[in-house]
């Protein structure tokens, strides 16, 4: 199997890059990020012989996906529910924070799950919610992220969960400065601020991409919406030697039991 990777810049670059790959004989073209949704939808219709898959695809209301397009979606609300519960169990001030990037339904899923998880274990817990902005640059503005983080810590939060791309690096800077804790997102972000990262809500994008390619190779291509939640190991939270000391065993046990209830379908984490 051969691979070609193109890194796109702004706007029209995305369409052009994927078109180049599709026209160049690729069996499958992946778009990584919700920003690819519109372009990949159009290209999938234009190239019915090529398979397309898009991580974090945003399905528009009433939209019918072509059979050669797989929308790889994650149940971020489920992973966020668990870290919300964790934060609410560990807060000393009774207040925890959330910093989102751009105000869009995708990021709202993180917020909704986080707030619900926190309230589930600690109905008195207060969650301070702030967003960096309303455009794509809200995901790469660490200066804004630091101010948002400082403001939430100043308002009494002692743990902040961010879902804001590079903007979150600023939240970690605020955590360092205020000597508080933060929760990473997407991947294990411990190394960004060792000692200040309580855990990270991880999205196993690699699992979804691997499964999609494996299925295609095995001749069992599945188009349409593919969801990856706690059950499919598509989302989760980090608990290892580096953060074990911050999380007492009973707290870990409580979060694990919540996880099992979600997997069993007894708890449904809200996504908006």
């Amino acid at each position, binding site marked *: 199997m051969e691979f070609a990777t193109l890194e796109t810049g702004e706007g029209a670059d995305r369409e052009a890059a994927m078109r180049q790959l599709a026209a160049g004989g690729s069996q499958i073209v992946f778009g990584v990020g919700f920003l690819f949704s519109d372009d990949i939808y159009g290209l999938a219709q234009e190239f019915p012989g090529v398979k397309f898959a898009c991580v974090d695809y945003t399905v528009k209301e009433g939209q019918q996906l072509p059979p050669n397009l797989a929308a790889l979606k994650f149940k971020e609300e489920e992973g966020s529910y668990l870290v919300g519960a964790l934060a609410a169990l560990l807060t000393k001030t009774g207040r925890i924070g959330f910093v989102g990037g751009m105000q869009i339904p995708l990021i709202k899923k993180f917020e909704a799950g986080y707030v619900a998880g926190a309230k589930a274990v600690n109905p008195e817990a207060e969650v301070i919610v702030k967003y960096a902005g309303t455009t794509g640059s809200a995901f790469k503005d660490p200066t804004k992220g630091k101010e948002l983080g400082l403001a939430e810590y100043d308002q009494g939060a002692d743990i902040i969960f961010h879902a804001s791309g*590079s903007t979150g690096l*600023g939240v970690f800077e605020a955590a360092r400065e205020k000597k508080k804790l933060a929760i990473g997102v997407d991947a294990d972000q411990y190394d960004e601020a060792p000692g200040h990262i309580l855990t990270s809500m991880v999205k196993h994008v690699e699992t979804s991409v691997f499964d999609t390619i494996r299925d295609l190779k095995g001749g069992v291509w599945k188009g349409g919406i593919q969801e990856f939640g706690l059950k499919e190991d598509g989302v989760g939270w980090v608990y290892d030697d580096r953060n074990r000391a911050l999380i007492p065993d009973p707290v870990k046990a409580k979060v694990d039991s919540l996880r099992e209830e979600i997997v069993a379908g007894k708890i449904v984490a809200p996504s908006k």
Partner: protein
Amino acid sequence: MSLLLFLAAALRISVPYTLAALGAAINERGGVINIALEGMMLNGALAYVLGAHFSGNPWAGVAAAVAAGVATGALHALVTVVARADQITSGLGINLLAAGLTKFVLTQVFHSSSNSARVVGLPDWDLGALSSIPGLGPVFSTPLVLAAIALVLAGQWLLFRSVFGLRLRSIGERPEAAATLGLRVSGYRTLGVLISGALAGLAGAWLASEQHSFTDGMTGGRGYIALAAMIVGKWSPLGAAAACLLFGTAEALQITLQGSGFPSELLQMMPYLVTMLALAGFIGRATAPRAIGVPYDPEQG
């Protein structure tokens, strides 16, 4: 205490705007439009990180940032003053170039297309009583905050009290008259753009130092906001600084009020709204230097 913390946030947010807007006031008074502030700032931010990364010394980072800003300014001056090309086009080109160049260098040096390694930030200065003001003390202990205040005052003096400033302003109004008096129009204009580059580079150093790293596209449109503030401030350093403080306060207010039920999106529009009101003439008259944007060609006088 929370009011003081709020004021501290407003001040911090205003710093990069103020430095860049101050530079813009100086070069635009000479008759050159500078929408390249964004690119100068971005280059400055990356240069700070490179300087601090390879030397381990934050002041080497600051020097590198200023140098990068000056170099970017030199490019703008070369295109607009020497080659007399369109100033808006040159500025846009520089911003696009900076976005691509910084990402390229970031990938080459730090093997990441999103952010650099962590570097040292500028140390705080202990200024006795000033540093121990509750809430605000830490801000006044930051070298670049003090530098911004001093530079605004110096810039105001330079433009309106010094011989250089008088000559620069006359070139921005009537370059042909100034040339008749024996002033080298291109020399003054170039110097104005270089000063602006140095200040925008310094603004970039602030962003990177506060963050201890460079992030792709981290200026996030701050150069354009600075330019708007300079217009609201009517092409004067003090006016620009006041507008930057206003914009910074609005941003801090927007951050503080988020989640309290107040429609904070309204505050997000404030800088743009104020700029448009100023341009439309509702906030006194905002009149640009007469010869702004017009390349000076001695052949045509």
